[in-house]
């Protein structure tokens, strides 16, 4: 498998005039969590549906767990797990009935399907709810059952789609915990998400996709460095003070400062962090600017995204 669990080269997928994938490349190392990041309509879903054999490619070549998705789809299916909006569990059945049914459909046979179901219910902390209908599960429980159903054959590669969308912080933490445990067990995870924080927390490597192609591929830190390392950030009380702050910050910044009129915020990348901070703080105080907040912060993946694509993520745009 040459150390890669997923390899995609120049993937093409067209729907009429629209190119959902337009020369998409991806390489996911074995045993890692790889984030696939992009706004709605960027091609994330199409990419995962192609890699999980749900839809056929128009061009390019992809291997998953060492097998060609076009030529050996059945072999691929025996080595992958799929969860999230792409694949659901049965809401009428109980958690146990779901896992036993999927186990039998994975050709484990009745007895082993039962044993495996019990084992997974335990592993994903669902034993107490095992015999309740999934329709009555909380969001976090359902996500965990979804994960368990994908893990029945202990697949080499797990496609994990927006695993924590709509979950409260505690359930989110639980799902992240489960994912980390799976990776520790040797599973490779391809995580698609719109939550930059999620990719940042879980992934060791990130591919940013926009308009059907990969526009960046790096570690989270590498991507952050791309937008210029640490940033200085000043928040003021009055809009009228922004131009003055911009002028002061510009003296220490590596690039032209950016302003955010609604949040009354000015920020810019800096190299000499501490000197820059003291310098700006002193000057603003001398000039009598009423500063509400001042500090250094690591760039977020939001900054990266904005910088790479020229537009913000859906979530940001909606906010």
């Amino acid at each position, binding site marked *: 498998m040459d150390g890669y669990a997923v390899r995609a080269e120049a993937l093409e997928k067209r729907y009429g005039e629209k190119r959902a994938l337009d020369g998409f490349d991806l390489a996911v190392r074995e045993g890692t969590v790889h984030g696939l990041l992009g706004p709605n309509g960027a091609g994330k879903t199409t990419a995962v549906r192609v890699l999980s*054999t749900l839809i056929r490619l128009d061009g390019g070549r992809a291997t998953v767990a060492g097998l060609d998705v076009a030529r050996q789809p059945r072999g691929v299916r*025996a080595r992958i797990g799929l969860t999230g909006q*792409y*694949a*659901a569990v049965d809401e*009428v*059945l109980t958690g146990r009935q779901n896992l036993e*049914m999927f186990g039998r*459909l994975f050709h*484990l046979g009745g007895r082993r399907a039962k044993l495996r179901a019990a084992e997974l219910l335990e592993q994903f902390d669902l034993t107490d709810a095992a015999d309740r209908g999934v329709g009555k599960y909380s969001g976090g429980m359902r996500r965990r059952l979804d994960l368990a159903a994908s893990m029945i054959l202990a697949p080499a590669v797990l496609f994990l789609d927006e695993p924590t969308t709509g979950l409260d912080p505690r359930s989110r933490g639980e799902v992240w915990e489960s994912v980390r445990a799976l990776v520790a067990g040797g599973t490779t995870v391809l995580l698609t998400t719109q939550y930059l924080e999620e990719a940042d927390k879980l992934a060791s490597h990130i591919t940013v996709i926009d308009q059907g192609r990969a526009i960046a591929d790096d570690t989270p830190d590498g991507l952050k460095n791309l937008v210029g390392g640490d940033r200085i950030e000043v928040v003021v009380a009055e809009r009228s003070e922004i131009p003055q702050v911009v002028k002061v910050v510009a003296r220490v910044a590596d690039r032209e400062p950016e302003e955010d009129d609604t949040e009354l915020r000015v920020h810019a990348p800096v190299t000499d962090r501490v000197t820059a901070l003291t310098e700006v703080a002193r000057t603003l105080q001398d000039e009598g600017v009423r500063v509400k907040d001042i500090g250094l912060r690591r760039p977020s993946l939001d900054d990266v995204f904005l910088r790479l694509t020229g537009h913000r993520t859906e979530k940001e745009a909606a906010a």
Partner: protein
Amino acid sequence: MSAVDLGTPGTRSGAYWLLADCWNIVRRGLTHYRRQPVNIAWQLGFPILSVLLYGYVFGSAMKVPGGGDYKDFLMPGMFAMTMAFGFINTATLVVYDSTKGVIDRFRSMPMASSAVVAGRGVTDLIVACAELAIMMLTALAMGWRPDGGLGFLGAFGLLLWLRFSLIWIGVWLGLIVPNPEAAGGLFAVAFPFTMISSIFVAPQLMPDWLGWVAAWNPISSTAAATRELFGTPVGGGDSWVEQHALLMAGVWPVILTAVFLPLAVRRFQKLSR
């Protein structure tokens, strides 16, 4: 990582797994009914209610051309109607599975994907048997007296044959309509189809052109053929199609299957596009 041996035995043939997968999908469908008793009550209650309502309300006022008991005319029609409405059921369950992503999960697994559709069909036929049995018992309780024996079995078979052909319309529509709510709307489309037939009223009592349409309705052929097989051939007409009800009750489902099975399969394969 797992104490269970997760290797799959490579010794079984493809046909074995197709049957096993199909059976597991059927099990799932039947478990749904077991877990939702209200749905069974609703699904079986409706035919019983129909038999009672139409039998007692219409039964007192309706005349059968050429004489005969209206019950003997109505009951086989009711059975055929219930089989005909069955496609809505199929469509609703298919659209639910496809929009919720359950079908996609099945397709992402190393199982036979044709088992998803075949399992649906077998489940629906099992449910249809239950529906027919319970309707017939109700009809018997109301004084309906068919001949027993081979004719009876033949009639039962023809009714299932009609239901079988409608599975494919159900699957096809289930993959086309956008959501379960829209599938409910199919009832409005199906209703006139069942009224313009020989279920409730003999076509010869309708205006000429409408009677002609009603006589050629596939449901009419099944209804008329089963009336013959139950030993109560009342209300038959003189037109060719009515004279050859038995033949047409066999042929119509062949035509429906020939048209809609390929359409359903194509639609299913289109999911990969």
